[in-house]
């Protein structure tokens, strides 16, 4: 039984990594939201399996919260934003996709090396996934650096948070409930603020290209 569940968690973890790469390569904003929702679903599945195996009820709540928030609510808000801002255009990337994939692979190897010595200390049932979680954090970080439009940057930020939740599940079998609630609240408020922001940015610059936001520097 535990064998199967460990296999399952590893499967979900690799799924998460795959989605992180898919996000790096995805050019269309609408599809990015789709991938983000799938990522959320994967985290929900992984959390539920850990909850089932370790019999921790609070992990079920955490999974339910992730489901409501990151699979339904936030993607719904993002889609509405896209619709109201009318931005279904392509996302251009600064470096070309193959070289980005290569850099991504280097990042994965790096995070596996980083996680290797400490993974054995993990108290959870699947210590091997810590490296994957770390890799997803770094990949989302890279996505934020390489994107020049506002919404993809935000999605990168959100997917980083997804990876962190997964890290918490895989390394420690979940943080205490108060903390998870606080994190979820922060993320939700953050998304609302960003939504407000995008309208303000568009109003001022008539575009959501972040490259307009490069005037503040020393002369």
């Amino acid at each position, binding site marked *: 039984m535990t064998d199967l569940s460990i296999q399952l968690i590893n499967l979900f973890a690799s799924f998460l990594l795959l989605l992180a790469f898919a996000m790096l390569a995805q050019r269309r904003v609408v599809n990015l939201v789709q991938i983000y929702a799938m990522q959320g679903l994967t985290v929900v599945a992984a959390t539920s399996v850990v909850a089932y195996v370790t019999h921790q009820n609070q992990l079920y709540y955490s999974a339910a919260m992730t489901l409501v928030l990151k699979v339904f609510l936030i993607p719904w808000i993002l889609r509405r934003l896209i619709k109201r801002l009318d931005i279904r255009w392509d996302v251009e990337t600064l470096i070309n996709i193959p070289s980005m994939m290569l850099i991504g692979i280097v990042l994965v190897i790096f995070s596996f090396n*980083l996680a290797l*010595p*400490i993974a054995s*200390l*993990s*108290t959870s049932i699947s210590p091997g996934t810590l490296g994957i979680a*770390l890799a997803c*954090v770094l990949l989302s*970080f890279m996505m*934020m650096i390489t994107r020049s439009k*506002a919404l993809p*940057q935000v999605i990168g*930020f959100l997917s*980083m*948070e997804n990876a*962190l939740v997964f*890290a*918490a599940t895989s*390394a*420690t079998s979940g*943080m*205490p409930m*108060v*903390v998870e609630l*606080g*994190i979820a*609240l*922060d993320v939700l*408020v*953050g998304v609302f*603020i*960003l939504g*407000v*922001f995008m309208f*303000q*940015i568009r*109003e*001022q*610059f008539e575009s959501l290209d*972040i490259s*307009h*936001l*490069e*005037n*503040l520097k*020393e*002369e």
Partner: protein
Amino acid sequence: MSPLFLVLATPLLGSLVLGIMGHRPNGRNVNVFFSFATFLAAVFLTTRIVADGPIFALNQQFFIDSLNIFLVTLTAFIGFTTSVFSRPYMRIEEDRGKMSHSRMRLYFSMYQLFNFCMLLALTTNNMGILWVAMEAATLTTVLLVSVYRTPASLEAAWKYFILCGVGIAQALLGTILLYMAAQKVIAPGVNPLLWSNLNAVKTLLNPGVMALAFVFLLVGYGTKVGLAPLHNWLPDAHAEGPTPISAVLSGLLLNVALYAVIRCKILADGALHNHFAGHLMIGFGLLSVLVGAFSLLRQRDIKRMFSYSSIEHMGIITFAFGMGGPIANFAGLLHMTVHALSKSAVFYAVGHAAQKAGTQIMENIRGLIKVSPTVGWGLMMGTLAILGMPPFGIFASEFMILTSAMHQLPWAAPVLLLGLAVAFGAIFSRVQPMVFGETNVKRLAHPPALLPVFLHLGLALMLGLYIPGYLNHWFVQAAAIIGG
């Protein structure tokens, strides 16, 4: 009702009330009222701590000891004086059409909420809640930085949000790793995220995990402290937001973030048995001093200039805590206090000076001493205080930091001195003509609130000459807790 409850509940209630009626003409008075009530509650809490020593509250979720009590009082005090300052300041901004009714409501409500988040971060014993409160403090101020809706302020707020968001995400990873290390050694049934519990078992925590956790925590919270090379958001956010917000960001939020770093350092030191954490902080600190000082030379905007000075000072404090030892820690704590007082005083004076001149570009601000002698003197004295002239408190703390650097890290002392000298030259040469030059601008419509400026400077002066017994006692105790 316990005073701690009042300290946290007052600003939270204030944000609700002001969210409903903040746009009314007396919204600014209500804002002052709530800030004053918070300050009173903090004073009440302080007297309790002076009498009874450290306390736990609410199932150990809150914890007040010598390390955070003076920060709580300082935060409540500067929160109060800033609310006094923002009364005339925001009124003038409103008259000039920069703020609408709904923006005023947002401003006051978020101001109170921001104070609440900082006080929560300072008093909580739970490392997870500390993270949540730090992130919430960022979120509350993002909309305040962009409140003028100019292209520059939007850009600053976006940068602030994204950079601090990414930074604070690293801190969450650090917290997760800390939790992972703690689960191994803490008995079941004991909450492994509570700092006091972690502190009790810190020597048993796994060094490998703790080293990695500390790196992430330092980078994460260090972004909010404004440590170079993660400081890019800070000058923009300080320069483009309303000046009262610059004052609280510089005077308070940076301190709170640094407080989080110090709490983490205590745990890392215990687990690692070496100076890894200290060395990292020394490196980041010195780099920030140099980057801050040399960037000062290129500034034209007065608020940008003083925000680079904040980076420099945060570097000095981080360096002091990195060095460790009773004297350097004591000096670091004193510097945190005096810097917060002086820098917010400088921002108050700068705010009125910039409002008077109608610009933040330093070349166009001239002759303050003729138009409004009090603003001019306030700016001059504040500048001297922030530059570490005796007899202000910063002189005392910088002197202690330098002398302990000469003992412990002789190579670092010249670097620090260089940074201080460059900062002195850069700031003084620009402030002097602003205060004493020729001018022909008009007076302001509403009398500026200068009481806070001189109150803060008076306190900074007092701390340079004499430190009250209980404060001294806290500093000594907190320095011992930090160790090093």
